[in-house]
């Protein structure tokens, strides 16, 4: 096999890890609260700025700045739920889309106000690893590994703990949760914190590879959303599989054509899938 093609495949897998993390966060929120956070990738942007601000501006070491950013975005997630979602929970889906869509513009403008529209880099150069003829970016490899680790930890949490089991149960029968002694409001808030935390983790991994600017969310938001729909909205396994399909299309497609065209290809697949299998790969027909 062509070494460059191999490199594209490997990079596709590595990219898939972070995309899967983002898709998992969005799916978790959708599955439990039945709301799509349109501004999800903008939370990632907030986390990236937080790390930039802590590390590049104030010299906080990365190993401290990253957890702080995760907590920060988790709190943002809870605020999004408390201030925006919770008051309109019972209203029409279109209102919820408009509200979180409004948040997207708000966060973009707010970031521009604070940091300007410049591209900011934390200025950390990580090595390139050579395996035979293959060149792999250490930042990407680390992002992939940590993303996988994060997903395993989340999976254990959902599988082992009472609250985790309640999070999986609530999507299956919302009403009956009260009989189990579960306060749904509390589960929603915890889920929002988890969703925010996942965005925070993603931000720590992405800031090592990309410059941060107020519109960075647009590079990840639409593709994350397409992944979730492709996998079946609310299906965590579906999102995981779809993330790796999409990342291969982007990476290998980009290798054969251009990176712009590869996004067009990904979008085409998305459109075709919507017609062929609207419930997504792993979705249940409603």
């Amino acid at each position: 096999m062509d070494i460059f093609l191999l490199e594209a495949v490997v990079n596709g897998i590595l990219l898939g890890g972070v995309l899967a993390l983002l898709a998992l966060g969005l799916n978790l929120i959708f599955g439990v609260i039945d709301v799509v956070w349109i501004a999800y990738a903008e939370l990632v942007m907030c986390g990236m700025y937080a790390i930039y601000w802590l590390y590049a501006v104030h010299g906080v070491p990365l190993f401290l700045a990253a957890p702080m950013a995760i907590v920060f975005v988790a709190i943002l997630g809870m605020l999004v739920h408390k201030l925006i979602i919770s008051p309109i929970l019972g209203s029409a889906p279109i209102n919820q889309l408009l509200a979180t869509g409004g948040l997207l513009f708000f966060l973009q403008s707010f970031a521009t106000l604070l940091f300007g529209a410049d591209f900011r880099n934390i200025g950390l150069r990580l090595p390139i690893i050579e395996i035979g003829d293959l060149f792999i970016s250490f930042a990407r490899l680390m992002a992939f590994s940590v993303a996988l680790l994060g997903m395993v930890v989340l999976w254990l949490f959902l599988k082992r703990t009472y609250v985790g089991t309640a999070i999986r149960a609530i999507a299956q029968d919302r009403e009956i949760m009260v009989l189990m002694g579960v306060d749904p409001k509390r589960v929603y808030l915890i889920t929002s914190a988890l969703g925010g935390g996942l965005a925070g983790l993603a931000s720590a991994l992405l800031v090592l590879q990309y410059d941060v600017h107020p519109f960075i969310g647009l590079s990840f938001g639409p593709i994350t959303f397409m992944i979730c729909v492709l996998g079946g909205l609310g299906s965590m396994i579906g999102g995981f599989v779809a993330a790796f399909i999409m990342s291969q299309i982007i990476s290998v497609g980009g290798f054969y054509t251009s990176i712009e065209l590869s996004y067009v290809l990904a979008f085409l697949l998305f459109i075709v899938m919507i017609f062929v299998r609207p419930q997504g790969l792993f979705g249940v027909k409603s």
Partner: protein
Amino acid sequence: MLEVSGLEAGYGSFRALHDVSLTVAAGEAVAVVGPNGAGKTTLMRTVSGLLGRRAGRIVFEGTDLATVPPHRIVELGIAHVPENRRLFPRLTVEENLKMGAFSPAARPHFAERLEWVYSLFPRMRERRAQVAGTMSGGEQQMCAIGRALMSKPKLLLMDEPSAGLAPVIVDQVFDLVRRIRQEGFTVLIVEQNVRQVLELVDRAYVLEVGTIGKSGTAAELKSDPAIREAYLGI
């Protein structure tokens, strides 16, 4: 133990229950019977907090349930086996049982109660890792009862546990309910199967379109000519 007085409840502008009063004493088994749409399920849902009351009082062991948030009612000792079982279909049997022990008071006793539920329903032990939605109706009913028992309730509400099951399985379910009685639980049960349920309860109330009609001991109702004609087909 449970005192319901002057209860009114409904959906939107529709009044499903009005002026319903009943009592259940500790150790008793009491049935609520009545035609379809009489409001039996509504009554159970109002007691367990799934539905708000419009008027009247529900007092459980001296606590007015109006003062307790719905998700705290199970901690007081009321567990509800809902109509149509309502298991979490994609969770395993054991995870469903775990949800029954969610409340902080129940969690430390999870392992011992799980053992106890498995000894009551050995079939559930065999099926512990099976996804609940793929089990037979009778097995699902056992799981739903087991889930309610995981909170070790003082009062067990059961809404038509025999509904939708084959006749042989119906007999098994009634045997289960009998065993639960023998374990010392206080039971308030709704049933369409009037003949069988009157064999196993101490007293019964007849709910007719939103309000209590007749009530009495099981023996009295079994010999009541109107009841015999309407519900026992004699």
